[in-house]
């Protein structure tokens, strides 16, 4: 099957195909971020706008903006004033920060919000509103120092955004269901798995926690069962995935 389009089309259709085979949230996130880098986007925030009374943080599906940027955004409640968000009142088509600067009259705070992003090296960003039958409004917002925002690039990124949003949503729902179904580790099991993750043997862990090696092994076996793992290395991976332990 020969390709009749350009690089933008080919890459994007390949990306969509690759995404369809992935189910793990981290793998999906990595794939999306990598693809956006080709266009010169260094960061991405994908989220669903919070309904009344809901927190913005709960709706975030992917965010790799610098922690300082995100923290400031929350602390100063920028969501209520961000011209890039306010634009949704007029426009449900994709738009860039440059578009807003040139078509809207911005007040001081609004200008500040956009300008502050440049302090972090983001000079332009693209906002793709995504609305589905389920009703909620989601946004796919990549940004970067000098991203490619030519018309074909925009069409490509829009499609990337639409498919990415769906893949993330599905994977997160699946993860939530898995979380709900599985039995959480006991505090002791968690403690022991944390040591296993640090590379300790059962004897060493027994020494640290004043337990016999056999007891430690039995806790690890229980944890493995709960985490649906055949080997302890995989149990560590699963424990991290489910937020039971961290590195």
């Amino acid at each position: 099957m020969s390709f009749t389009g350009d690089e933008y089309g080919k890459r994007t259709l390949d990306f969509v195909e690759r995404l369809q085979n992935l189910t793990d949230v981290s793998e999906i996130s990595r794939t999306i971020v990598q693809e956006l880098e080709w266009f010169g986007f260094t960061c991405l925030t994908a989220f669903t706008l919070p309904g009344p009374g809901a927190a913005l943080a709960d709706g975030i599906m992917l965010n790799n903006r610098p922690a300082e940027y995100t923290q400031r955004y929350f602390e100063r409640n920028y969501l209520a004033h961000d011209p890039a968000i306010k634009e949704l009142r007029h426009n449900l088509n994709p738009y860039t920060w440059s578009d807003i600067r040139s078509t809207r009259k911005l007040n001081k705070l609004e200008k500040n919000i956009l300008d502050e992003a440049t302090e972090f090296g983001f000079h332009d960003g693209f906002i793709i509103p995504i609305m589905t039958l389920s009703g909620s409004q989601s946004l796919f917002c990549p940004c970067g120092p000098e991203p490619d925002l030519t018309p074909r690039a925009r069409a490509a990124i829009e499609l990337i955004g639409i498919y990415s949003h769906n893949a993330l949503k599905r994977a997160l729902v699946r993860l939530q269901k898995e979380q709900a179904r599985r039995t959480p580790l006991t505090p002791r099991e968690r403690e022991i798995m944390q040591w296993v993750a640090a590379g300790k043997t059962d004897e060493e862990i027994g020494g640290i926690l004043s337990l016999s090696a056999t007891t430690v092994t039995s806790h690890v076996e229980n944890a493995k069962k709960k985490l649906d793992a055949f080997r302890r290395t995989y149990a560590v991976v699963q424990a991290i995935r489910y937020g039971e332990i961290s590195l």
Partner: protein
Amino acid sequence: MIIVLEGSQRRKLHYYFERMFALRHKVFVKGRGWNLPTVNGEFEIDQYDVDDAVYFIDMDDSGAIQGTVRMTPTARHSLLADYFPHLIETGASPRSPLIYEATRYLVLPARKEESRVAKTRLILAVVEWCMSQKLTHLQAVVDTATLPTFIEMTPRTIPLGLSHPYGGGRRVPGGGECIAFRWPITLEVLEDVRAYGGFDEHLSGWAVHGQYGPEPAVVEAIH
């Protein structure tokens, strides 16, 4: 209930066709302002309303039409091949005896809870019919803004290219962007659509009625 009609039945079952063409006129010509051929100022009928077009009509208990969609063979003509060939960037042919094109899809606004079910019911009937005909795909050209909903129905939605402006593009009234996609006709897609509409495994859309067009007895009952 969903009834399935063939274009060749237009004279015999004119009662249904007239109401469907009138509703299409109301929604697409009057409602969306599309520049489409109109018959008697009342019916929206175009060159794809041929004998081997297949029509799916979702009717409520009172016989009012809640939704409709047209499926046409693509072996010779299709919207995609005739008007939007540039939407295909994969080099795939828009023509195949095993691919039908969906057009004139409309579902009347229902109460919010029902909208998803109503939309899905019609599409489920279409997918089931496609399976019964052993088609490989269904294809459609849609407004890019609606693509997320189709992907939500099934992630196996295959884009044929990036989206392109029509009618002057998004900034122009009556303009926008459109994209072509295909759905493979597989059990997975069928299950995806069923799950999306919250349908019981055993509910089927059109298969209950099993054949083209209602029996004459049914037509009389509705009158």
